[in-house]
């Protein structure tokens, strides 16, 4: 029973930091489940996908209400992300779990690198209050391709895929950054759901692990979104770059079957 409480608390921590740092939670939930609780990688991915739905639904609800998400663009790109997520989920079932661990370690390292580059930029972005609404975009076929890949990564590794979709919409499709962020969040729930059902049908969404972690994540993400305007995230992001880099190395070593001495 104490493990249940720890899992709820772990979910709260992942949800809280995930929402404050804009990470979506997946990149923190999977290391927590695999490294701390010893949950097999594929089951951790299944649970993470359900948690990702929980974190994105709350935020997406708010963004849609404020008119920040481009619902029509989001729906169009979802045609590609959902197919990508199903393919990713099916492929994950065929791969050795160690391969998934190594791929996840690479994704963590990319996330850490991407966060270190954006730590300063996001500080400026938080201070600007320009509201750009939904509107025009370019290069839809390229965007669809990137969305398929984002869905693929989501279904394969249990993350939201925002780290691929946001730059794709912003850089390739010329969507304003705030709209890209809100639209990506809007798409995450549907994408994660498509992948989650693949894991669910294989019996890889453990009710106790998913239930306790998801409840914690939901509470943490709700608290995080309330705290967000009151805290400075730049220092926190710099600390988390190191945390993610460390987790990446630990997951890589676990994937390679090597035990770290620390």
């Amino acid at each position, binding site marked *: *029973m104490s*493990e*249940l409480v720890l*899992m*709820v608390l772990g979910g709260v921590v992942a949800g809280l930091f995930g929402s404050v740092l804009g990470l979506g939670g997946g990149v923190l939930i999977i290391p927590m489940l695999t490294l701390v*609780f*010893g*949950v*097999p990688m594929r*089951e951790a991915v299944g649970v993470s996908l*359900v948690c990702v*739905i*929980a974190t994105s*639904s*709350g935020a*997406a*609800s*708010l963004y*849609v*209400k404020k*008119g920040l998400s481009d*619902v*029509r663009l989001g*729906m*169009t790109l*979802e*045609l590609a992300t*959902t*197919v990508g997520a*199903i393919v990713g*989920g099916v492929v994950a079932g065929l791969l050795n779990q160690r391969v998934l661990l190594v791929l996840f370690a690479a994704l963590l390292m990319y996330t850490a690198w991407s966060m270190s580059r954006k730590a300063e930029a996001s500080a400026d972005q938080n201070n600007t209050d320009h509201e750009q609404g939904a509107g025009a975009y370019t290069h839809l076929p390229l965007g669809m391709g990137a969305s398929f890949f984002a869905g693929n990564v989501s279904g394969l590794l249990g993350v939201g895929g925002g780290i691929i979709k946001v730059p794709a919409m912003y850089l390739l499709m010329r969507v304003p950054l705030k709209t890209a962020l809100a639209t990506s969040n809007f798409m995450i*729930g*549907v994408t*994660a*759901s*498509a992948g*989650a*059902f*693949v894991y*669910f*049908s*294989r*019996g890889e*969404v*453990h*009710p*106790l*692990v*998913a*239930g*306790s972690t*998801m*409840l914690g994540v*939901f*509470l943490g993400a709700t608290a995080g979104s309330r705290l967000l305007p009151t805290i400075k995230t730049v220092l926190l992001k710099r600390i988390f770059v190191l945390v993610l880099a460390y987790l990446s190395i630990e997951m890589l070593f676990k994937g390679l079957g090597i035990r770290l001495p620390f």
Partner: protein
Amino acid sequence: MNAKDKDVSLNWISHILFVGSLCAAALLALGLLVMWIKGEPFEPVVHVVRPSLSVLFLSLLKGDAVAILNLGILAMMLTPFLRVVVAVVSFLWERDYRYAAVASGVGLILLFTIVPSFF
């Protein structure tokens, strides 16, 4: 379609996402509470087999904690699908047939993974 219609459809989508996740979280809290009251063991690493709908229904009638947790998980997993259904209806209401077709396409892809999960 006027701006008011658009606001109504966006509000519906927003409400569905909020209410769906809140119901799922409430079911999870209830499931964990029942488990705690009954003093059932917590075994997180044991591999599980997905529940069939009939087993889930019968277990729910018995007040089984794991069944309540499964229902909460399914409620969360189905919330995005419900959001897509609401979007289809909203686009049809707005006579935006192009995006009604796009949203229907997304719904069909989701059904492609949802339906086999229960059989």
